[in-house]
């Protein structure tokens, strides 16, 4: 089962902090992170790539973005 983290509407640094914690807990697999600000999208993508995760960016109909992180 794919885990999902809903980080929409949260202030810095919470989206990145929560994503980092979730990735460390997961180790490998797939994590979906929902974000709705460009800063959160960039920060989560950057930290995931730095930790060796593949990042797939999917635009959602409501204007938010789903980041699919996999390793």
């Amino acid at each position, binding site marked *: 089962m794919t885990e999902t983290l809903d980080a*929409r*509407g*949260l*202030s*810095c*640094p*919470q989206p*990145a*902090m929560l994503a*980092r914690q979730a990735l460390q807990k997961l180790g490998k697999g797939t994590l979906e992170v929902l974000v709705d*600000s*460009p*800063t959160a999208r*960039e*920060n989560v993508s*950057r*930290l995931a790539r*730095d930790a060796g995760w593949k990042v797939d960016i999917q635009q959602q109909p409501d*204007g938010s973005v789903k980041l699919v992180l996999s390793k």
Partner: protein
Amino acid sequence: MSAITRFLTSRWGPVITGAVVGILAPVLVKLGNPGNMGMCMVCFTRDISGALGLHRASVVQYIRPEIIGLFFGALVGALAFGEFKPRTGSAPLVRFLLGMFASIGALLFLGCPWRAYLRLAGGDWNAIFAILGLIVGIGIGIGFLKMGYSLGRNHPAPKAIGWVMPAIMVALLLLLILAPQFGRDASGNPTGPIFFSEKGPGSQHAPIIVALVVGLAIGFLAQRSRFCTVGAIRDVILLRDSHLLNGILALIVFAFITNLILGQFHPGFANQPVAHTNALFNFGGMALAGLAFTLAGGCPGRQLFLSGEGDADAAMFVIGMIVGAGFSHTYSAAATPNGPSAFSALALIVGLIICIIIGFTMRERKV
């Protein structure tokens, strides 16, 4: 255009922004701004507070065009790249309080983090204690974040909410240019509501058009690159991510070089411009400010740029800063170049207590 966008949102974005701030801030000092005060969100909002008559410290009253320029630079950046999204609902009242106490704390040091770095780059060693305090304040904020602190989520808001701050900024620009005098003093002479200092730091300023244009440029770059003088330290400690910190290092290096070239580097503790030498209050004031900034999610510049993106919660923080500066000067809490004032210690203690209560009590509501 897209190449520039990618560049500014890459790891180089904050470095470019920091370098531009580092060069232009000392130039504004050369053109008339107070020493080491080419760019300072807290000093500038404090001057605006005084110009509007929210405090009557007659030496620090001026509608700083830099703030108006920074805001519109960020607004243009957000509009041009589809990032203008009116939103609110993440504990605006708490953000107002955090803005107030961030300002009250920073006015004990006499500068926000931007000015702390600029003061360091101008040779004002008092800034070292302030930056240490800032790091401690941010560290305490990180402790709360790790314990689950959150001001909750914002939500999309009607477009009109996003246009409130632009309207306020246009009004400030008009008040700056027109400087109306509706009031009458005891002898019937025109006075206020707009007050401009005739002496002191408030009377020292670069030409309006230059300050506006510099603000616009920096606001645009900072919005694109997510430049944040508090996030820089926070992300290194919390996320082991130094890309924002590189921006601060660039700011300090370029400001140092520019100050050297312009003959504005004067190393030492004593006789620094708009500064005092009380290390305890320089440290403590910035620790309070650093905590408040971290609990609110970013430095005062970042709050201003976010408000330009339509974030009405960040706008509440900015307005809190203006009101906090009013309280700080009216109630003799703000420090002066002579050192702390009668109620500086009380303001510091009350501010720390309230921010710590906020840190312990604010959690996201699970529905």
